[in-house]
């Protein structure tokens, strides 16, 4: 059995959109609803799903940018959700995040060197005279030149900024990095460069990734295990090979069949889902996917399926497999 780095148990995040006069919630958005999974040490766990499925919210809970409504988080066996704010903050340096938009996630008024140095100074990791040396080391690690540390973010291209974001995350020697759509905003040729960089850094620093993305081909390339989310629920978790070779949940099947393949000679049978993703404010009763499902059973509308292990290490939440 692999060593578990992070364990997520029944985690929920509800946003209260509207309250009655007496403070009672009337309208609640269940962004993440009772999600459980684990991330092993040294693996890359991919999280896929369409917009609004709660994958970013989940990532933000792990790095303490949101606090969960219910549920527990364990990091190296320690329950993070039981800690007070100050103790919790001491774990922030172990769990870092790389953001989607390299234009919005760097302070435009700071030089790149200062951006990378800031987390080390805040966490008092190094004596002040050693910080610059480490900034140069980190810039080299992500493939930037050391003289670029005196430049401002606007002088960099999208791919280079994403490298700065990666260097900043690495600065505090994290154990887990949450990559939230880290390559989605980049052009294809730059995307390949950044993906290869992430793979190399994982080897070099022994990192663990939670890799959040909507591009299934990218997730496949980088992940060891993959979880599929739909409307705040985890619907399938399994190894990469199993997920792409033998997807069980109808949503996963549809998602995989919807990816355009780069071979015009090979036309595949496509499952076109009807309709749109329903609003997470009033999700359908029973299985949340039943309004778009092409294999719907009678009980799907009545009862919510639970995530079950149907074959070794293949978990799926669907009534078809009961």
């Amino acid at each position, binding site marked *: 059995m692999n060593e578990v780095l992070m364990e997520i148990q029944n985690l929920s995040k509800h946003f209260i959109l509207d309250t009655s006069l007496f403070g009672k919630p009337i309208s609640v958005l269940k962004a993440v609803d009772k999600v459980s999974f684990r991330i092993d040490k040294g693996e890359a766990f991919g999280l896929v799903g*369409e*917009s609004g499925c709660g994958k970013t919210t989940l990532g933000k809970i792990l790095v303490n940018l949101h606090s969960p409504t219910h549920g527990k988080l364990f990091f190296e066996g320690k329950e993070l959700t039981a800690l007070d704010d100050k103790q919790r903050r001491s774990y922030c340096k172990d769990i870092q995040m790389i953001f989607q938009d390299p234009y919005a996630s760097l302070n435009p008024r700071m030089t790149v060197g200062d951006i990378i140095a800031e987390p080390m100074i805040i966490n008092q990791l190094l004596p002040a005279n050693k910080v610059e040396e480490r900034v140069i080391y980190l810039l080299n690690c992500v493939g930037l030149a050391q003289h670029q540390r005196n430049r401002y973010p606007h002088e960099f*291209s999208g*791919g*280079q900024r994403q490298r700065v974001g990666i260097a900043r995350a690495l600065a505090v020697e994290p154990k887990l990095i949450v990559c939230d759509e880290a390559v989605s905003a980049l*052009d*294809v*040729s*730059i*995307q*390949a*460069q950044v*993906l*290869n960089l992430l*793979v190399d850094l994982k080897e070099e620093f022994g990192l663990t990734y939670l890799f959040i993305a*909507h591009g*299934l*081909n*990218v997730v*496949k*390339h980088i992940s060891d295990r993959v979880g599929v989310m739909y409307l705040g629920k985890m619907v399938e978790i399994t190894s990469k*090979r199993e997920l*792409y070779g033998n997807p069980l949940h109808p949503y996963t099947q*549809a*998602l*995989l*069949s*919807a*990816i*355009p*393949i*780069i*071979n*015009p*000679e090979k036309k595949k049978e*496509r499952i*076109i*889902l009807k*309709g*749109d*993703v329903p609003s997470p404010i009033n999700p359908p009763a029973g299985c949340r996917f039943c309004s778009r499902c092409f294999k719907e059973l009678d009980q799907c509308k009545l009862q919510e399926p639970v995530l079950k292990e149907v074959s070794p290490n293949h978990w799926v939440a669907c009534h078809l497999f009961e």
Partner: protein
Amino acid sequence: MLLEVKNLSTEFKLKRGTVRAVDDISFTIDKGEILAIVGESGSGKSVTSLSIMGLLQKPGRIAGGEILFNSQDLNKMSQKELQQIRGNKISMIFQEPMTSLNPVWRIKDQIMESLMTHMKVSKQEALARTIEMLNTVGIPSPAERANDYPHQMSGGMRQRVMTAMALSCGPDLLIADEPTTALDVTIQAQILELLYRMREKFGMAVLLITHDLGVVSEAADRVIVMYCGKIVEEADVKSLFASPMHPYTVGLLQSIPQIDDDSDKRLYMIKGMVPNPLRMPHGCPFSDRCDRCLERCTQEMPELQEIDGHKVRCFLYDEVKEGASAK
């Protein structure tokens, strides 16, 4: 031949110099054909579409060339003449359905506006046709949804409304600029299928502009690859994907993680990045990133040459061609 673009160049005059976003490109689109233009950001693909539509904003201007639509030069037309064609014979779908719909108008009014301007129909007829179009693009209960405002709809629905609006006057040419980029994959599949069905139904030609080679492989008949404002390769979709010729196209295809590839090998990388348009390298614009760069490539610009119906702008194929003719 429906549209013929001849030696089109588009320039942006900036304080620091002039940027040639589109540099001497020529292509044609036949009736009912889907032609895709692919390229990365800054390759000039969107500027090409805006030039055709006459929607260039200052400081952009067409520096030369002709855009012949049914043998009339769109570039020489007055704004008034252009308005007769734009939205009627040529229409466009944009990338961002939220920013390209008017947020304070009901969607039926937005679609009816173009119908009443171009088709000279009464309000009742326009409304009936609007609802019919919304039904065709797959909006459930179209008569009720026609009264919605754009913010009441999801991204996929808005893109359908845009498509309905673009198709309402039965255009001969539809320009779709990144029509699925902002959408999720399952919705992307719906919209691509819709475009395909509309092409079958109305027989219009589509100019599809995208950065996604997957979408191109699914939807297009013929493909143009652009890099730094130049056409670097042009071929029908099958031969482009089966035997890409330009090193840039080859690199692009190899740098995409493939869904049906089980190996864990490293991705191929095109080194470096797109050059600054104000400081283009000498010779071939791709020369500083190319693995197979020859000495000649940094000195002169290769011409677009045709080899068995497959056009490519690269010196590597000069020898192939000369070798073949020597035999």
